[in-house]
């Protein structure tokens, strides 16, 4: 293969991974939060016996079933793509991150999949208590899954606890503890898990608001909106705090990523400015039209106005990440975080003024921010994954040295097939989700407990139920 052919094949493989993993993560970002939400709803139902919780459970479990199915099938792709497209990485790092992913399968995937059938189809077979246990098992599975996969990802970002064998493989050192609990893992785990909960909260809140705008007395819409806005008001500030800690951790372990996030091409020995907006220009190594606050970046990152901060001028160009993508993705994430915070505070004011269910402007804002979590989560992943380029194992193994020995036409063909299939299949799936969300929660929401309809609709009556949904 010529060098040019190799460059193209590498670029295509990177595009394919970015495309498939981004699409995939939309679903777990939703299902992690939704599974816990469903467990809470079912628990409240069992504890209080209030019909509204049972109705909301039945309403959201139909959505969960579709989200989960799409997450599973797009996730299987990921577990094979390490080998198909990143075989050198797999050979070199497989002994370290392979076991973490094997633990994810053993402790999480089987748990989710094993109890999902009972959760979706088994209420009448096993009774309320065992069914609640199955729902909790699925929710727990989603969280355990996050634990292991984020440990594996974090090890790639901040590798510790490894040794390098004579054949070039990374091999585990004396302690697996050092590998699993690598320096960025606790921060990434908490930040990502909260992000999934917030993503779900804003999606649920957006759906609740959508129906309150039509009928402010719908009990299901009121309950879901209220629950979602409590999450928005209480958890968004926590997330901003955790995000800040995660950023400081990144400054310690991957300072170059922070330089790209901040747009700091130059070093600032006497306090670095916080660039709010501007156009990163990597060719000239400067930010054009920068709007900045003097010394504020040093204040945020070092808690000292005059603290020196190194810039990308201290990093060889071959080791710099693409600055523009990281810079903009970071601003999208932070901007959405601020918008979420404002909505959360607004909901507190509305609650205090007893207008939570009767303030159309608030509801419109909540609808607009309904998808905000998904955008913020993807933007956050772009920051951390593009920001650690050009490495797959940070500082140790280059992305360019990680790819499979595949010809460009092979990867071009597979990428095309993925793009077509994902947009067609998942596009339709998302359309089905929106259609389900568009239907107001019924007072006698069908499904699961002996009513003629179950989540994925098996009976002929189900077909009619769906007809109603249109």
């Amino acid at each position, binding site marked *: 293969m010529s060098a040019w052919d190799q460059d193209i094949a590498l670029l295509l493989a990177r595009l394919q991974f970015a495309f498939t993993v981004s699409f995939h993560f939309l679903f777990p970002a939703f299902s992690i939060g939704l599974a816990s939400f469903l467990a809470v709803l079912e628990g409240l139902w069992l504890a209080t016996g209030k019909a509204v919780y049972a109705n909301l459970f039945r309403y959201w479990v139909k959505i969960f*079933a*579709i989200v989960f*199915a*799409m997450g*599973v*099938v797009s*996730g*299987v*792709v990921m577990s*094979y793509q390490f*080998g*198909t*497209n990143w*075989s*050198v990485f*797999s*050979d070199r*790092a*497989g*002994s370290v991150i*392979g*076991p973490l*992913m*094997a633990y994810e*399968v*053993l*402790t999480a*995937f*089987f*748990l989710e*999949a*094993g109890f999902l*059938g*009972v959760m*979706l*189809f*088994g209420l009448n*077979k096993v009774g309320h208590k065992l069914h609640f246990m199955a729902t909790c098992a699925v929710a727990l599975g989603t969280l355990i899954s996050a634990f292991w996969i984020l440990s594996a990802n974090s090890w790639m970002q901040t590798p510790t606890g490894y040794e390098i064998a004579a054949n070039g*493989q990374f*091999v585990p050192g004396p302690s697996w503890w050092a590998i699993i609990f690598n320096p960025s893992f606790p921060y990434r785990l908490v930040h990502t898990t909260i992000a999934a909960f917030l993503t779900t909260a804003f999606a649920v809140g957006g759906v609740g608001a959508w129906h309150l705008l039509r009928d402010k007395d719908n009990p299901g819409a009121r309950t879901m909106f209220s629950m979602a806005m409590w999450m928005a008001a209480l958890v968004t500030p926590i997330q901003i705090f955790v995000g800040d800690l995660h950023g400081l951790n990144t400054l310690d372990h991957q300072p170059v990523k922070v330089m790209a996030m901040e747009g700091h091409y130059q070093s600032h020995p006497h306090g670095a400015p916080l660039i709010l907006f501007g156009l990163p220009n990597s060719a000239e190594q400067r930010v054009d039209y920068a709007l900045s606050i003097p010394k504020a970046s040093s204040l945020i990152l070092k808690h000292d106005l005059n603290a020196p901060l190194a810039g990308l001028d201290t990093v060889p160009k071959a080791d710099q990440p693409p600055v523009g993508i990281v810079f903009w993705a970071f601003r999208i994430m932070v901007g959405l975080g601020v918008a979420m915070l404002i909505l959360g505070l607004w909901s507190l004011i509305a609650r205090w003024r007893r207008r939570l269910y009767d303030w159309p402007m608030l509801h419109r804002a909540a609808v607009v921010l309904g998808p905000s979590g998904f955008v913020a989560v993807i933007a956050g992943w772009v920051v951390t994954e593009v920001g650690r380029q050009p490495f797959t194992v940070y500082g140790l193994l280059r992305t360019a040295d990680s790819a*499979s*020995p*595949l*010809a460009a*036409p*092979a990867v071009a*063909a*597979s990428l095309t097939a993925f793009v077509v*299939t994902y947009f067609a*299949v998942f596009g339709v*799936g998302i359309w*089905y989700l929106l259609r*389900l969300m568009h239907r107001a929660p019924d007072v006698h929401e069908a499904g699961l407990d002996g009513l*003629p309809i*179950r989540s*994925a609709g*098996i*009976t002929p009556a189900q*077909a009619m139920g769906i*007809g109603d949904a249109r």
Partner: protein
Amino acid sequence: MIDLTVIWAGIIGFAIVAYVVMDGFDLGIGILFPRFAVGEERDTAMNSVAPVWDGNETWLVLGGGGLMAAFPLAYAIILPALYAPLIAMLLALILRGVAFEFRWRDPGHRALWDFSFTLGSTVATFAQGVTLGALLQGITVEGRVYAGGWWEWLSPFSLLTGLGLVVGYSLLGACWLIWKTEGALQDKAYHHARRLGIALLVVIALVSLATLRLEAQYHQRWLAWPGVLATAQVPLATLIVSALFFRSLARRQHAGPFFWVLGLFALCIVGLGVSIWPDVIPARVTIWEAAAPHSSQLFMLVGAVIMVPIILTYTGWAYWVFRGKVGAGGYHS
């Protein structure tokens, strides 16, 4: 000292067997789906696997993930070598996996999602069979990387194994339906099982004979004296199990045919073991050459020893919850 590499080869082998046992029949139902009447028959067939398909497919992820973790070199060589069939399999698994939900969600396009279910099930099965054939016929390896082209997997032999697996999974699917359903659908399943049983025996014979010609190692393993006295038991047992399978069909037993077909699959896997053991890439790389370090294997073994029995327990429970005959009306009645 106990050889962890051998234990891990056993665990990966177990995951593959578990996958074939569990996902084989639900892929097979997808392949046979167009043979069933729209409405009650198809709904019943779908319902018989809907609560368990996701768990079944997880064994495929364990096989892939476990291979990466325990035999990273094998994972790094095999997956690029089988690029086209594996990508086809992954896309096909998407098409069939979403159909479980989508066909109920959108009755107006049920025909489309039924087609997607069948297409996905068939392509995924065929691709898995091709993968097996391509592995058996040999992969070009230089140093630690795959060194062949992106069409190396394609040969009459790999197409034959692809076809063979489609027949085999279809038979498993038909036998599952014999076990789990009643009436007209069960009658149809008996009918298909008889024909597919004959077809499977023909394919097993063809693949077995063709395999002997692929590598000197296989020929040697099977036919050298006195080993042939032992290896000859495998085809002999295959004939006996086949006879028991057809007798079970003739007596219209419900659960019997499914388990006899599993017996046939088990014998095929034993035969595979005779040909390739102890290689992970047949005739190229042994399990010891591809093995991860002792520490990785030990760390995972702790997890596997604790978790696999627990997984089997709750998977068994989930199957138990949905035991008995299935109706078109789902699990409410």
